[in-house]
């Protein structure tokens, strides 16, 4: 493997290409970002200070020919939102282009001595440092447009909105989509603020003339990716015209509502009377009715064969925003008591432009509602909160910090967070396994980190009762480990659904990784390799000061019964501590 580490130091504006050292050489994607952060970032550093770093890494198979749905990029660092290690993952154009330049990872460190803003351009010829004062303060839609004018080869653009520039903890990192819009996000955990602390407004990546990705065993790669592709094309969820292609992730709105696990009005109920009006079926109906630029079945990165994204149109058929995901429609919708897709879409646009994670942003609005600043369901007032953020008023800056800071400002105690990150669109009291993931993942409350929803709700990868506590610590760990592996491959996590049900797909995924890297791995190694990654992340968190007391859901969920099932959080602390008991003493 002749992959390089590109180390960009903003203190002296240097860009050095290093051979990937032996200790990191087996890793890519999340495994690599976590290994680098563990090695190079002091766990007790201030996340906004000079000693934090931003690590950007494509996955093992990213940039290889015909690897299906393999365009994911991992972003890593110490999270300003949680104080833990963070890996945040995005689609869009960046993964393939970074990989094809022969890069294993980009490490962004230091800070400009002159306090100025920079844009970086990474090409086969090296790194260009350019003054970005003409971009500073601008929203990502305008930034992406300007940069595609400046660099007409349709490069990847990795950027931060004004929220990241101000180093607010709910700042995400934007990656442009195939249409050149800032529609994809490494959203969770505030890594946009870490990029802001480096003085970098945007990174342009153009892979033209790049060396491409070395492949150790072409035949094994081909065999593996064919099996994986076949599984994706066969499974009802991921096949053409299947669930995800037709309705996107928002297919879940009505389903999770039906299960009584749709967090509503700041996690005060498990069903929302307006769920149908913000569902994936309603989005598809809007697209059908309004036509024009609207679409479902949109691909977020070149080479995706699932294509679950959408472009939401206004009444005239003009594109408002890509993408209205389930999490986004839920956070800005049900959790705020809002049932109007047009407002959800407009608020999504604001998040994309300002550079905010939509989950945390929606949950923040819900806190402002609970705190009495505005009313639950007041869609106009919710939209107006984004003006506050854009103005960077003191209250706007508080909103930009996410749920916990906003809750403190408003005296709200019903705070749905773990390790400082707010919960996504599944209520732990109604779906116990996902609650275990929220509590124990090194990432904070994170659903993709260990998506037990698959067996608990969807009947994918098995079938278990969501209301049952039994076996949920084992279940969550298995999913956390498998996910850590998939997050390192460069494949979209949604390949997990077919490969959990179709074993040849699972084998194929592992074989494709073995084929590219020359590593001696099969499907039997996936969980163990995933656990290695989790162990590194737990180690960082432990050194950062986290203990078992941080692997707990919020207090209010232990005593407040959630309708319709009227359940409280009932998984014991001992059971939660079982998830990572295997790391004790290590």
């Amino acid at each position, binding site marked *: 493997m002749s992959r390089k580490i590109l180390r960009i130091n903003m203190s002296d504006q240097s860009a050095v290409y290093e051979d990937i050292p032996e200790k990191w050489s087996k890793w890519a994607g999340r495994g690599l970002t976590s290994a680098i952060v563990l090695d190079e970032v002091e766990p007790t550093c201030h996340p906004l200070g000079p000693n934090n770093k931003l690590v950007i890494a494509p996955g093992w198979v990213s940039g290889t020919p015909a690897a299906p749905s393999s365009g994911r990029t991992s972003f890593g660092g110490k999270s300003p939102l949680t104080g833990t290690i963070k890996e945040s993952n995005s689609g869009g154009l960046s993964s393939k282009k970074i990989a094809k330049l022969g890069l294993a990872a980009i490490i962004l460190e230091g800070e400009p001595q002159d306090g100025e803003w920079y844009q970086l351009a990474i090409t086969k010829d090296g790194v260009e440092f350019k003054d970005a004062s003409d971009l500073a303060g601008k929203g990502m839609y305008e930034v992406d447009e300007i940069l595609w004018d400046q660099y007409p080869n349709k490069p990847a653009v990795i950027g931060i909105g004004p929220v990241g520039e101000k180093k607010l903890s709910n700042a995400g990192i934007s990656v442009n989509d195939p249409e050149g819009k800032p529609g994809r996000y490494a959203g969770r955990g505030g890594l946009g603020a870490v990029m802001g602390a480096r003085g970098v407004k945007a990174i342009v990546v153009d892979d033209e003339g790049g060396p491409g990705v070395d492949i150790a065993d072409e035949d094994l790669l081909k065999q593996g990716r064919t099996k994986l592709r076949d599984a994706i094309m066969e499974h009802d969820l991921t096949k053409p015209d299947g669930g995800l292609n*037709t309705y996107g992730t928002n297919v879940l709105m009505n389903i999770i509502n039906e299960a009584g696990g749709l967090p509503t009005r700041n996690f005060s109920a498990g069903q929302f009377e307006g769920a149908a009006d913000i569902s994936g079926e309603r989005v598809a109906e809007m697209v059908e009715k309004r036509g024009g630029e609207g679409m479902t079945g949109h691909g977020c990165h070149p080479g995706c064969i699932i294509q679950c994204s959408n472009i939401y149109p206004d009444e005239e058929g003009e594109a408002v925003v890509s993408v209205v995901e389930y999490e986004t429609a839920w956070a800005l919708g049900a959790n705020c008591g809002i049932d109007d897709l047009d407002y959800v879409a407009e608020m999504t646009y604001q998040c994309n432009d300002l550079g905010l994670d939509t989950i945390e942003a929606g949950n923040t609005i819900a806190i402002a509602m609970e705190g009495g600043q505005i009313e639950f369901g007041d869609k106009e007032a919710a939209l107006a909160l984004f003006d506050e953020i854009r103005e960077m008023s003191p209250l706007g800056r508080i909103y930009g910090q996410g749920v916990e800071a906003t809750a403190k400002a408003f005296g709200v105690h019903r705070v749905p967070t773990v390790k400082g990150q707010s919960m996504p669109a599944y209520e732990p009291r109604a779906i116990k396994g996902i609650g275990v993931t929220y509590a124990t993942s090194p990432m904070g409350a994170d659903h993709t980190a260990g998506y037990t929803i698959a067996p608990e709700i969807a009947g994918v990868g098995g079938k278990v009762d969501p209301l049952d506590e039994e076996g949920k610590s084992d279940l969550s760990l298995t999913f956390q480990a498998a996910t850590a592996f998939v997050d390192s491959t460069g494949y979209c996590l*949604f390949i997990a659904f077919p490969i959990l049900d179709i074993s040849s797909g699972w084998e194929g995924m592992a074989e494709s990784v073995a084929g590219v890297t020359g590593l001696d791995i099969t499907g039997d190694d996936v969980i163990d390799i995933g656990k290695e990654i989790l162990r590194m992340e737990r180690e960082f968190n432990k050194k950062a000061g986290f203990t078992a007391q941080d692997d707990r859901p919020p207090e209010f969920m232990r005593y407040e019964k959630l309708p319709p099932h009227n359940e409280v959080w009932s998984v014991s602390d001992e059971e939660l501590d079982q998830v990572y008991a295997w790391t004790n003493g290590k």
Partner: protein
Amino acid sequence: MHVEVRVFATLRRYLPELDIGEPKLLEVPQGTTLGEIREGLGLPIEEVKVIMRNNRQADEEDLAQDGDRITYIPAVAGG
């Protein structure tokens, strides 16, 4: 007995007259299973991945009760 049935996502094409989330009200005899109701509505078994009854997991063999809210769900998942 009266039951109300909902279908979502790709199963909606079998009951196109219903709005999203709108239930179909049915009268069924005592002893009818959830699988028999599914058959009666023309929902192919291979397309129904999950059945819910009164917001809880249910199975084909379960007997319907008066007032049940039954939902048939195809393959779904997301983020």
